[in-house]
């Protein structure tokens, strides 16, 4: 067998459970100074070539794995730079091969200069969820983040998606960004709420290595950890009051609008990622395609990233969620309860209000989420 996927996974998907399918679109018009995702500027011919390879990979993978996917997530980079036509072709391909009826289909969009019919075309092909990069509603903050769209453009984009019948919209917001204050964050959150979106993802800025932000760090006027933590709590409370409940460290949604695709990551469920730098978790094995556009075009095999899905990893991911590490889920997945030793380690942390531990399981509080790296290192 020469299929690269088979070489890594060794077999077709064993479980009948539908997987999540992720397609990585490694193109951006320009690179934002805080971002370390894999992306590049490409000519239309390269994009065409890439989509052709991606379609081929989708078909091959489907033939090898012989399983269904009930979520499709097209992320990037900036998927919207492909244009509606290319995106629709990819989605059609996924529908023919992987997708179940009623699958969640998400496309990430940059609200900068989208053509008027863009969402109409996506909706027609079945896209039912759109993620829009807002980051901040304050023009000065947006500009510092390298975001080109204006606040008005974001608003128009949201309205256009809604007009096309896509109600499940999410906005990306950033916290702890240069010059952000309580007031400016309030402005951003109020803007999100005024648009009536049912989902917000809000990320505390992390300065990634080899990004312009890392080089400029000293000059950036970043809020310190204490202020960033306060901003985070302010955000959680504001969104919660508006009916967007926190369901993960950085994710908030009205009931029924949680991202089904992303929940697969946190529930340690299988997913297939296609594209350079895209990761997969199938049959207990993690693997990824190299962070290299050309080698992906040439059909290079994914690289093994070891096994996954053991209890520690499961707990590490589950504790990102508001529902936390649940006894019932652990029992059905592992056939045993949450170990007592883990509960014992939780006692002092519970006393300090960082988590709750009871017969249902273990859940981090907001203050616990804020220091979750330390919490996990302590208890796992």
């Amino acid at each position: 067998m020469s299929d690269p996927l088979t070489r890594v996974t060794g077999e077709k998907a064993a479980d009948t459970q539908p997987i999540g399918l992720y397609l990585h679109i490694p193109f951006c018009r320009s690179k934002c100074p805080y971002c370390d995702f894999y992306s590049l500027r490409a000519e239309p011919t390269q994009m065409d070539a890439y989509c052709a390879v991606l379609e081929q990979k989708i078909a091959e993978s489907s033939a090898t794995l012989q399983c269904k996917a009930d979520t499709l997530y097209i992320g990037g980079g900036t998927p919207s730079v492909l244009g509606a036509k290319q995106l629709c072709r990819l989605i059609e391909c996924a529908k023919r091969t992987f997708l179940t009826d009623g699958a969640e289909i998400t496309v990430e969009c940059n609200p900068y200069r989208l053509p008027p019919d863009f969402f109409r075309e996506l909706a027609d092909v079945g896209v039912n969820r759109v993620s829009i990069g807002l980051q901040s509603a304050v023009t000065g903050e947006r500009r510092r983040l390298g975001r080109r769209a204006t606040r008005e453009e974001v608003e128009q984009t949201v309205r256009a998606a809604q007009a096309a019948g896509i109600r499940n919209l999410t906005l990306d917001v950033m916290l702890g960004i240069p010059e952000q204050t309580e007031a400016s964050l309030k402005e951003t959150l109020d803007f999100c709420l005024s648009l009536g979106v049912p989902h917000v993802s809000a990320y505390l800025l992390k300065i990634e290595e080899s990004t312009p932000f890392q080089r400029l760090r000293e000059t950036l006027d970043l809020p310190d950890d204490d202020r960033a933590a306060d901003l985070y709590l302010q955000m959680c409370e504001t969104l919660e009051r508006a009916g967007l409940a926190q369901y993960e460290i950085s994710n908030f949604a009205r009931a029924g609008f949680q991202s089904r695709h992303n929940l697969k990551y946190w529930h340690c469920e299988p997913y297939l990622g296609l594209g350079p730098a895209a990761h997969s978790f199938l049959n207990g094995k993690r693997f990824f395609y190299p962070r290299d556009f050309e080698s992906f075009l040439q059909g290079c095999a994914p690289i093994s990233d070891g096994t996954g899905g053991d209890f520690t990893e499961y707990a590490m991911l589950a504790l990102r969620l508001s529902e936390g590490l649940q006894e019932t889920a652990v029992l059905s997945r592992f056939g045993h309860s949450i170990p007592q030793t883990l509960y014992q380690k939780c006692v002092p942390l519970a006393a300090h209000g960082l988590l709750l531990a009871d017969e249902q399981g273990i859940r981090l509080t907001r203050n616990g989420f804020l220091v979750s790296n330390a919490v996990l290192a302590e208890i796992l």
Partner: protein
Amino acid sequence: MAKKDYIRNFSIIAHIDHGKSTLADRLLELTDSVLKRDMEEQLLDNMDLERERGITIKAHAVKLDYKAKDGHTYALNLIDTPGHVDFNYEVSRSLAACEGAVLIVDASQGVEAQTLANTYLALDHDLEIVPVINKIDLPAADPERVAAEVEDVIGLPCMDAPRVSAKTGQNVEQVLEEIVHLVPPPDDHDDKPLRALIFDSVYDSYRGVIVYVRVMDGSIRPGDTMRMMATGAEFTVVETGYMRATSMEPTAGLSSGEVGYITASIKTVSDARVGDTVTLADRPAEEPLPGYRKVNPMVFCGMYPADGADYENLREALEKLQLNDAALSFEPETSGALGFGFRCGFLGLLHLEIIEERLEREYDLDLVTTVPSVVYKIHLTDKTVVEIDNPSHYPDPATIDYAEEPVVEAHIYSPPEYVGQIMDLCQDRRGVYQEMTYLAADRVDIRYMLPLNEIIYDFFDVLKSRTRGYASFDYEIRDYARSELVKLDVLLNGDAVDALSFIIHTDKAYARARKIAEKLKENIPRQMFEIPVQIAVGGKVIARETVKAMRKDVLAKCYGGDITRKKKLLEKQKEGKKRMRRFGTVEVPQEAFMAVLKLDE
């Protein structure tokens, strides 16, 4: 009385850095004891550490053959002496093995603390002193002024003292001639019962202990049964011989006046203690040579392996070092904070530092050492006395009648312009002024009584920095004196950290407590919850700081591609926690712990 006319036994004495080792090297070269091209710089100091620090830690000896201008060949036995106050006793034993001493004085520095201390020691042993003015090649050299100072301060005629540069070799031959002329030959006591003074002993893994002796009376040869007069231990002599610069030269025996070595399958240096007298079992001497005493450790600290798994390795390393160092003591101790380790005793702080460095360097051990302590005598209300060298064993204050601490008599030699600074320092260290003597126009000797616990730590460093390096310092332990002492306890999040406790004079408790609290606050990274840092005396908190809780340590994005990265981060964090010292729920990184223990002014 008959003399051994062609033997000369001598030491070289000098203040630190005045060129003792360099001169010794030149003497070895001039007597062809060692080929110049084979010569490692400063051959006599053959431990790395010694060479780096420019001090001689342990005495060594070497026999040189010198063909003098009078046509005779002389056996010159150079007995090297340790150069630091911690090893005063060893120095005195080395001097007792000699008839003369070469006194080196730096032509740019003049008379310093150890110049005087060592000269007085040499005079105490009735040694003939051969003054040598060294470093005449330095631009700042002023040999005539320094010669005059030596005449004034020490009362030694220096008119004809060789002016040399040990570095360039200039005039060094004159030193050999002076030794031959000035140092008296040893008496011939071959017919008396054997008495040989042990001035050093070294453990060798093949031969057992090599005992360095000066034979005073009688003679000894292989096959004899030797007896250590202090310990009574007996051994059969395997080999006798002379120490050469690069080898050992076996001989048929050693007789009075000679310096050499004996091997007798002796297992530890504590069976051949420095200062003991060797005699023969079948014809023992009536009296041992005078001056033997068992050296007692003065300074104690806990030594713990940074990695608990190294405990056995630390024990083995200490055992090995002890084979060679009778003054080092250790016994197992346990600390709630640091785990398993050893309470170690040393002659002084330098001795402590040398052992610590050797453990880290030669045995590749990563150590945590607690604050050094002296031995306190605590008089209890029930009229008993306990000796405490470990703050953890400090009795309940309610049971204490009064406490005593060791006191030293200190001499500080300095140019007069620093007298004010020095007196401030000594006052600050609870010193009691004794007197001040002008040794020369630009040299005073300030005498203080100082508590030992005030000088074991950083006294010398502070003295140096306040006097821009001009002052020198020497001390001798005198007695115990009554003192007002308290034990400071450090509490992190309410839990006492035993390894950070220490005993201190009441007057200094508050200032020190505040300082420690600040240091801990600076050095303990923020953790998941607030950590109160308290310093307490007998349950009463006298200083307090708070390490604020960490607010943000989170991976905000964790999607498909981030999971393995997050897993690795988690592993790394867990690994990092293993390197932390855990006190209750508080984690203190090794570095922070060290920073607190190395509390400086």
